[in-house]
């Protein structure tokens, strides 16, 4: 409990300290290009956020699904050692079904950018 609180505090403070240090120590030579807020690839003066392609969305979805899958592995890895062959079979089935799903998605062109 205390550990957790401390880690929240330490990392939170660390982040704050870094921002402040950057502000204090960093050199400042303002020019118009630098004054623009930085955003990856999109011009700063734009109403809201621009449209995005459907392929992006599908990849994000695949990421989410596999993320859920991975989330299961962490507790399983901790218990895996005591389980022997049964554990391997259980985990293997799980991965097999998803791997076949992944092959399906790949073959259906989820990564094909056009």
């Amino acid at each position, binding site marked *: 409990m205390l550990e957790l609180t401390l880690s929240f505090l330490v990392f939170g403070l660390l982040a704050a300290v870094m921002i402040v240090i950057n502000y204090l120590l960093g050199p400042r030579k303002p020019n118009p290009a630098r004054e623009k807020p930085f955003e990856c690839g999109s011009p700063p003066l734009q109403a*809201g956020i621009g449209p995005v392609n459907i392929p*992006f969305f599908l990849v*994000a*979805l695949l*990421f989410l699904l596999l993320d859920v899958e991975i*989330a299961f592995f962490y507790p*399983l890895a901790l218990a895996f050692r005591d389980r022997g062959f049964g554990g391997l079979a259980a985990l293997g089935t*799980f991965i097999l079904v998803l791997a*076949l799903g992944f092959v399906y998605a790949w073959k*259906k062109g989820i990564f094909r950018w056009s």
Partner: protein
Amino acid sequence: MAWAVFLILSFLCIGSVAAMILSRNQAHNALFLVLSFSSLGGLFGLLDAPFAAAVQVLVYAGAIMVLFLFAIMMFNLRGELPVRVKKTRLAFTVGLGTILLAELLLAGRKLVLGSPGAASAAGGDTARLGHFLFSDYLYAFEITSLLILAALVGALALAGKREGS
């Protein structure tokens, strides 16, 4: 100490959810939701459930929000949504919501004030969770893979490319 953290996190969580509902800008909505998910993760951590906390942050605040943002960007809604409130519907919603809240409070009163329920003893570390997944919940675990597969196929069927293009 724990109380202070709990209070901060829960106010942050409820506040950001309220802000999400009240804000009319979709991108802001999504970001408020990230905040509420993260503070919920902190609350899970307070309950000695580090795994649930990590999953909450990784899957919800991470992956699901990326998906939300992509979806919002895909629909490409220009400007803010107009506020349309029908009086009767609002009254109806508030009434039903109040009834549900009262019901839950009545139900929860005994749990909160009385002795802890049966399930509270079953908390535990992540390794025990793994053992549960291999023993009691093995069937459920395997079905989860089926669920993920169905979601994958379904998403590709609905959002995937047309044949021949």
